[in-house]
């Protein structure tokens, strides 16, 4: 099916009749399936500009719909509904309600960059996916996705200390998404590790609780980054005509309020 027809032919617009005669012609059954005519009036003319105003979406206007991105896409291969080319088409056409049908899977882009590698127009479809996922969240169409939770947890730890520690990020992420740490496969992995180096691992994890890895003299960088992030957020909210802030990634709380200069460092 040509891509521009995908949004016109929907199962709910298809009509078949067990028994129907029109002007003496028998149009019963599958052979005479009708498409109910549909006129689109709910365009969001601002959609493309809004996506383009978010990081990653800048080049969306360049797309010429060749399909190379979808063709090469890692996630498309296991979930056919994941279709970057189609979403870019919908965004450029302002077909917001069609885009929203797929809102719950757009965040699943794994950033493999196959699309960016394949795209002949330097659209950076991977960036468009991220911008679209942000847009959906900022507009309140989706809750914060698990991957955004992870990205924020990670970023907050980097902003706070300059470095991260994997166990710490893992713990923070599971807490944020309210998942139990004791999942069968994680337990199996922990057990395999513990089996062979009980002493070293035990020491290491105890150590990481006491002293998290950090970059020395980071306080100034931390403040500069926080100011920068807040300024960016305000700009994005303005571009999307959002009044009150929806999301505020802050540095992980290190016993001190974050936006204030901390004497601890």
């Amino acid at each position, binding site marked *: 099916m040509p891509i521009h027809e995908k949004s016109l032919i929907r199962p709910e617009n298809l009509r078949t009749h067990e028994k129907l005669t029109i002007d003496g012609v028998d149009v019963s059954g599958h052979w005479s399936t009708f498409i109910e005519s549909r006129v689109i009036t709910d365009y969001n003319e601002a959609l493309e500009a809004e996506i383009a105003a978010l990081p990653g979406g800048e080049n969306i206007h360049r797309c010429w719909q060749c399909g190379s991105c979808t063709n090469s896409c890692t996630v498309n291969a296991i979930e056919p509904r994941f279709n970057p080319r189609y979403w870019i088409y919908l965004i450029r056409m302002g077909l917001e309600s069609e885009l929203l049908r797929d809102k719950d899977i757009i965040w699943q882009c*794994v950033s*493999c960059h196959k699309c960016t590698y394949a795209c002949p127009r330097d659209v950076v479809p991977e960036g468009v996916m991220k911008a679209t996922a942000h847009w959906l969240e900022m507009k309140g169409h989706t809750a914060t996705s698990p991957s955004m939770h992870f990205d924020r947890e*990670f970023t907050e730890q980097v902003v706070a200390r300059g*470095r991260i*520690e994997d166990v710490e990020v893992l713990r923070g992420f599971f807490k944020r998404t309210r998942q139990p740490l004791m999942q069968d*496969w994680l337990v199996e992995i922990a057990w395999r590790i513990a089996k062979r180096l009980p002493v070293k691992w035990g020491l290491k994890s105890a150590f990481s609780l006491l002293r998290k890895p950090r970059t*020395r003299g980071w306080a100034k960088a931390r403040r500069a*980054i926080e100011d920068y992030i807040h300024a960016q957020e305000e700009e994005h909210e303005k571009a999307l005509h959002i009044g009150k802030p929806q999301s505020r990634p802050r540095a992980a709380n290190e016993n001190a309020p974050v936006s204030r200069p901390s004497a601890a460092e």
Partner: protein
Amino acid sequence: MSEKANKTKKYDTVGYYPGCALEGSGNGYDVSTRAVAKELGLRLKDVQNWNCCGAMEVKNVDPKLQTYLSARVLSNAVHLDRMNVVMAPCNGCYHNLKKAEYDLKHDAQSREVVGELSRKAGHKAYEAGQAETIHALDWIKEAIGEEGLRERTKGKLAGLKVANYYGCMYVRPRHIFPEKDQGPGSESTSKPHFMDDLLAAAGAENVEFPLKTACCGGAHTLSDSDTSTRLVLNILQAAEAAGADVIATECPTCHTGLEMHQVRAEKRFGKKTSVKIMYFTQLLGLALGIGPRRLGIHTNISESMDLVIDKCLT
């Protein structure tokens, strides 16, 4: 010839940026890289007081913040350590430093943000062209070369069947790696071969492996675990079908992802695979006669110690 000699000399001592993963879950990669360097007489000078490059996460909060974080690492290497080559074994770090280099060269806005944040943070801003970022593969390939490895290893890995897995960040997107795809001798972004070349020089048999640059879903390893497990399972099964004993890795995220989801595929999907997963530096270390514990092989989740014993690689 003289250019080649110069380059080899340049890589004898390099700035070393391990990054967060190598200090944590990717520790086996760090210890094996250091052990191999020592054995080969190459010097690694740790970048002083480094910070996280932004990994795969920070760019999703703000891409230019990631550029700044990576640029600060390069700034430290240049201004604190006086190094003009930075070697990053982690694909994520390597990718981000390369991307920062590219953006600083081509994008005025990136220069502006990096300049401003560096000034406020109180250090000199890194400028494009001040340092060269290389991967651990480039480093050994240039500094020692296949000939050098052949002499030193005497085909020690003979009989070992290897599937070389490079992942995404080492090759994509193409434009941030201007030195790749430059004809004979250079690395290829569609069919990378540097790891194949080095391991073959050490005697290993590289199997025909079609998923060298497939994605392991590393970005969503915990946040979309089912997708990651399916992607990893593809890679593991393809390696087994190709007859590999071991998958050689050159990235801590890929390595950990393959190991973790090998366990998860068995636990959750009932799909068992037994191919081992080892860092290419661990394999090279074995070929050079370094003991497996010194290479951190006992810390691999995929129980690769069994393979070392089976194949008499100690």
